[in-house]
Structure formats: C-alpha cells, structure tokens
C-alpha cells in the first residue's frame, strides 16, 4: 500500500486537510486536492490517481455527478471511489453506490474508519 495516489475532492478546506492528514498514514502516498467536481475532472485529466475520495454536497458540480462522469470515462471507469457525506439517509448512500461508488463514509469521519474502508477496497481490487 505504499506510494498510493489519492484525489481528495472537498469544498471544505478543513475536511480536505483532515482527510489528507489521515491519508498520510499510507507511506509515500501522493495527495491531489480538488475543490469541486469540475476541478476534480480537470485534475483527473492531468494526474494519475489510484483512488478518488469525494464529498457529495459541493458547489459547481456535486459528488454524485462526479461519480457518474468518472464511471462513463473509459480512462477512469474502474477507479475506486469513496463518497464522504454528511447525509445520513440511506437513500443518499444508495444513490451514490448505485452510480458506481465503491463505498461511503459518513461525517464526522474517523481516521481509523477511513483507512479501514480504503484498505478493504484496495484488498478487494487486488
């Protein structure tokens, strides 16, 4: 799990920093940050990443739309995606998962839980 590259998509600087801080537990990982869905799509064109972690509620383009577009793109269709959301309702989670997200994490996030979820996805994907 060394040298992983993550794309963190969050409009909140506090959350971006917290997620990035937690991800640094992966030795030698590279973190690319984006402030919304559009910014994330731009970054995906220029950066190679191994996983996307995205918030749902964001200005310009929300996380659900981003998940949908990432899955439609041939280059990124198999990229693991974790949605991070304040929404506790089951239907929002189901919607994200139905669009192709691999897992979801509810805010407030726990670093250990975030790392566990990422570890499980990486294990599943070999």
């Amino acid at each position, binding site marked *: 799990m060394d040298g992983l590259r993550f794309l963190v998509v969050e409009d*909140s600087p506090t*959350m971006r920093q917290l997620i990035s801080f937690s991800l640094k537990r992966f030795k030698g990982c590279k973190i690319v940050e984006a402030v919304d869905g559009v910014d994330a799509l731009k970054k995906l064109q220029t950066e190679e990443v191994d996983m996307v972690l995205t918030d749902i509620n964001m200005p310009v383009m929300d996380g659900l739309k981003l998940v949908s577009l990432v899955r439609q793109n041939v280059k990124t269709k198999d990229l693991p995606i974790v949605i991070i959301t*304040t929404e506790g309702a089951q239907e929002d989670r189901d919607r994200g998962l139905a669009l192709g997200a691999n897992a979801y994490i509810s*805010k*407030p996030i726990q670093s*250990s839980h975030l790392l566990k979820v990422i570890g499980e996805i990486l294990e599943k994907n070999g």
Partner: protein
Amino acid sequence: MAEDHNDLFKKSQEFLQMLSQQKDFIHELLRENERLRYQVASLQNSSGDQTHLAMELEHLRRRLEQLEREKKELREAYQRVEEENKDFAQRYVEIEDQNNNLANLYVASYQLHSTLDFQEVVHIVMEIIINLIGAEVFSIMLLDEKTNELGVIAHEGYEEGMAFPAIRIAEGVIGEVAKTGEPYYINQASEDYRVDFLHPIACIPLKIKENVIGVINIHKLLVQKDAFTAVDYELFSLLAAHAATAIFSSKLYSQSERKLTTIQGFLDLLTAPASKG
C-alpha cells in the same frame, strides 16, 4: 525245611514288591518335586515381571505428572499471552482513537489560525462544528459589550426565517453559560426533542482567559451521530479557547484595517491639495 524256604521266598517277593512300590513312590515324589520347583521358579519369574511393571508404572506416573505440570504451565503461559494480546489490541484501539483525536484537534487548530479575516474565521468555526463535531443545527453568538447581550452572528440548519432572540447575560441556559464560562451539555437529546433555541443540547463558551466573548449553541446532531464522543469534548475545549482568540483577533484586525483605511483616506485628503498646490 521246604516250608521255611517257601516262606522266605514269599517274604522276599513281598519285600521286592514293596521296594518296587517305594521306587515308584520316590519317582512320583521326584516328579512332584520337579513340578513344584518349576512352579517356584515360574512364580519367582512372575514376581520379577510384576516388580518391573510396577517400576515402569511408577515411571509413567511420574512422567504423566510432569506432563500435566508442563500442560498447566503452558496453559498459564497461553492465558498470559492471550491477556497480553487483548491488552495490546485494547492499547491499539486507544492509540488509534488518540491519533484520530489529535488529527481532528491539529486540523481544527491549524484552520482556526490560518486567516485573520473575520468572516473566514467564522466560516472555519462552522466547518469544524459540522465536519468534526457532526452538528446539523447550531449557531454562533457573540457578546455585544455595549448592550451586554448575546447576538447570533452565524447559524446553520434552522428553519428559514427563524428569528434569533438577543440573550442577556445570565438569562436561561445560554445566558448562564456566558455568565459562568462553564460549558453545558446534554449528551443525548430525547427522541421527542424539537429544536428550541433557548434550550440547546450543548452550549460552549468562547473564552479568552476568563472573559467570555460569545457562545456556540448546538441544537441537533447529524442523523448518523447518536451522541457526543470523547473527542467532541476535546474539540469543545479547543473551540472554547482557540475559536475565541481567532474570532477576537480577526475582529480586531478587521477593525484596525477599517481604521487604517479611514486614516489613509484622511491622509490622502490632507496631502492631495498640498501636492496639487
């Protein structure tokens, strides 16, 4: 004379017969003796085997006792290792929690002091309350030193058009927190709890040393969050001090910036005609 001779012959015959019988008897005795000696020898051999078996049994019994002792020791060692494992697992969870808490506190502290813009600081405090504490409905109030009343400067999640009352020091739960500087918590609101501005589930004073400059009122947590956790109380402590200084500093900075702009304007006015003249 012949009669005597016959009698002697008869007697000798009887004697011979008796000798023959004795010979048979002696043979019989010798056989019996041999049989008995064989039995004695067999018994002696058997007794030797039994002694040997008894010794072997004693040896095995001691070996069994030794193995039982070793088994007991191994079981005790196994239990000790199990206990240590449990202890390590527990420590690991605790350290993970501490890491998590430290990450939250580090990020919150870093963000709070990342700007001197008042509105940005308020926005960061709100982000911390939403993302790190997990509050859905909350407000931030600041104390107006002229009126000695607390007024809402930012809020999230309340019904649209809600009127936020100004609260006097020592008035109700919020006013009491502002007066004493002691935080107020209900760890878990009852199921039928409805947002009532005057009765928050948590009210955290914003303090600079002993001076309360405002409060944070939390009225509802996110659906997925049942109750406050240990790290929330740490965050409340951090917010009580750091958010207060960050808000106060940014407010002073904004005021000084405004004053500086005003003074600069005056200076420009004063110097402009001179340069023209």
